[in-house]
């Protein structure tokens, strides 16, 4: 059983996630599988996973670079298949170990994101299948549009060691909208 930062015994155990004008949901325990390096794209395609363009997401595959991919759906079977496969197949990027995954939603989502992310994420500027590799809440992050549990919003990957910092940054940015 893995210990994630916000779970009991985790490094960010006592951090509460904001849930008023904006709602933060921790998706870190959800499966994902990242592959990097020469051969990773070809191997993934051979598994029946078509690759989107760079900086786009399609069918649960995020393409972060020409040979830098993250699968966010049904990752466990894929991981087993990858381990059994012969090279070339890229190498595992340990995205499930090194990244936290948070979902942002709520009535003031756009206002808060405008404060903590320099990329224009409004519907006109940022399409459903787009990924932005940028900064969110002062951290290097990957952000894309994601509806989770019926809630429209965005998902963010960032360094798992900064979990408490990120939660704090979002809450601080949201304060001006919740007070007054």
């Amino acid at each position, binding site marked *: 059983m893995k210990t994630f930062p916000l779970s009991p015994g985790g490094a960010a155990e006592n951090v509460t996630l904001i849930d008023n004008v904006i709602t933060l949901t921790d998706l870190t325990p959800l499966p994902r599988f990242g592959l990097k390096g020469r051969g990773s794209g070809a191997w993934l395609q051979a598994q029946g996973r078509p690759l989107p363009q760079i900086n786009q997401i399609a069918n649960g595959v995020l393409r*972060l*670079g020409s040979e830098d991919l993250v699968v966010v759906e049904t990752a466990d079977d894929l991981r087993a298949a990858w381990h059994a496969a012969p090279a070339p197949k890229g190498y595992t990027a340990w995205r499930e170990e090194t990244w936290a995954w948070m979902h942002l939603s709520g009535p003031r989502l756009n206002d808060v994101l405008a404060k903590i992310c320099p990329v224009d994420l409004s519907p006109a500027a940022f399409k459903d299948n787009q990924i932005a*590799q940028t900064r969110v809440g002062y951290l290097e992050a990957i952000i894309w549009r994601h509806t989770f549990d019926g809630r429209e919003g965005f998902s963010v990957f960032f360094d798992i060691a900064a979990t408490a910092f990120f939660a704090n940054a979002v809450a601080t940015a949201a304060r001006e909208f919740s007070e007054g």
Partner: protein
Amino acid sequence: MKILTCPMNGPRNINEFQCFGPVKNDPDPATTSDADWARHLFRVDNSRGVITEWWRHVPSNYFFLAERNATTNEVIRTFTPQDAEARP
């Protein structure tokens, strides 16, 4: 904020980038003298005109090249190493 255009991620604030300094030639370790090797390590193009530098877009860990005027700070162009090879 100054904007730099990443060949992969498009125009971004310059604080999303890290500069790795002017491009250097790779000397051959087998034939390079100690003195030349030291010069290769410590000497950097500090001229005031247009310099070609390595930059990295930090969130995506993407390395590329930029031509920039070291006095006016004007970025003339950004490009990939493949673009550089394709140039006549």
